[in-house]
């Protein structure tokens, strides 16, 4: 599974876009706090669902307002309010879980989701997700990370994914008692170090 953000960055009734490799997803949290992940593409005319909004506990597309429930099924078409949308109208759904303060998303080739490969279920506080202008291979190499998308160091969980070939997104979560500001500033320094390394200035 891929770490795609911090739990604290997505409140109830909010939406967030996510990209990883060539895939685009939309995450949204319903009013009960449950997280959902869909393909970021409306089955009607292909508009990005991440431009939409949550209405009546469903994800609504910005273009014509079709509404999708947590199972990805279309439940309402504003232009035809009396119509019960056919069950064939649905978005593509992805497995998503929250663990250690972060949101983990399974791409479809990973069914059932490989939760055994995730960090242990310990309580952590998400500090920051931060874009870094280096490819994910550089992140792995500089951090000496032999796992796919995360590592633990000094009690901190550092995870990353690849929204663009030359941009990585770092995510940091720490133990509840640790100093948040100090951890945040450590992550900013890591960004500088990674970018210096990639540009040949090598501060790592």
């Amino acid at each position, binding site marked *: 599974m891929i770490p795609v953000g*911090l739990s604290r*960055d997505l409140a109830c009734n909010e939406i*967030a876009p996510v*990209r990883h490799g060539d895939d685009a997803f939309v995450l949204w949290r319903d009013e009960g706090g449950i997280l959902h992940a869909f393909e970021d593409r409306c089955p009607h005319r292909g508009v990005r669902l991440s431009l939409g909004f949550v*209405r009546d506990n469903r994800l609504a597309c*910005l273009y014509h307002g079709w509404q999708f429930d947590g199972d990805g099924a279309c439940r309402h078409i504003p232009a035809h309010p009396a119509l019960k949308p056919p069950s064939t109208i649905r978005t593509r759904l992805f497995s998503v879980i929250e663990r250690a303060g972060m949101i983990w998303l399974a791409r479809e080739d990973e069914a059932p989701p490989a939760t055994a490969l995730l960090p242990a279920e310990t309580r952590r506080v998400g500090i920051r997700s931060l*874009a870094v202008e280096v490819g994910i291979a550089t992140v792995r190499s500089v951090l000496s990370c032999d796992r796919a998308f995360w590592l633990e160091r000094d009690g901190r969980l550092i995870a990353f994914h690849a929204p663009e070939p030359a941009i990585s*997104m770092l995510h940091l979560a720490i133990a509840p008692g640790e100093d948040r500001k100090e951890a*945040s500033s450590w992550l900013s320094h890591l960004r500088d170090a990674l970018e210096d390394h990639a540009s040949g200035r090598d501060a790592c």
Partner: protein
Amino acid sequence: MLILRGWIVDERSYAIRLAASLLGIALAEDTDRRAERFGPVLEDETGERAHVGFYDCLSGLATLPRRPWVWPDPSGREMLDWAVDSLERFSAVRRAVLCATRPCDGRTPEILHIYRSLEDRLHDRAMEDGLWLSGPECGFVDVAIFPVAGLARDLGIGMDLYPAIRRFDAGMRRQAGFITMPGIAACH
């Protein structure tokens, strides 16, 4: 009543309309395409006093009596100057991108620097459990920088890279008195 001479797709004209709306100030609006290049003009009803350009219009709103937002003191002025300067730069690049006859990448190093700086500043506020750059409440700095957040898509900037800006954008849209412009939809 104050008169705003602005242009509907100009971000700076929008920021003035937004500030006025959030502050509960009634504005008469007059379309003037010159605002697209030079920014809006705010006049009093007699036409005798005019604030020309974005910064002046914003400071003009601050001089009106009994308004809850305070104009930043010298220690907060750096933040306001940065916000105004960033919006002016964003506006120039967005205008060039939207008027281009061929596909044109708006993600210039200068623009990416603005987004990084905004993200960092908003994250620093979040570390102190704050959402706004102006202080505990929304204010002039927030309104000045908001179009940069709300219109990011026009320059091909993905909000997946900027979670703090996304939170800020959502927070502004929840404000009583929030208004829209072409490119900033209401239903969020």
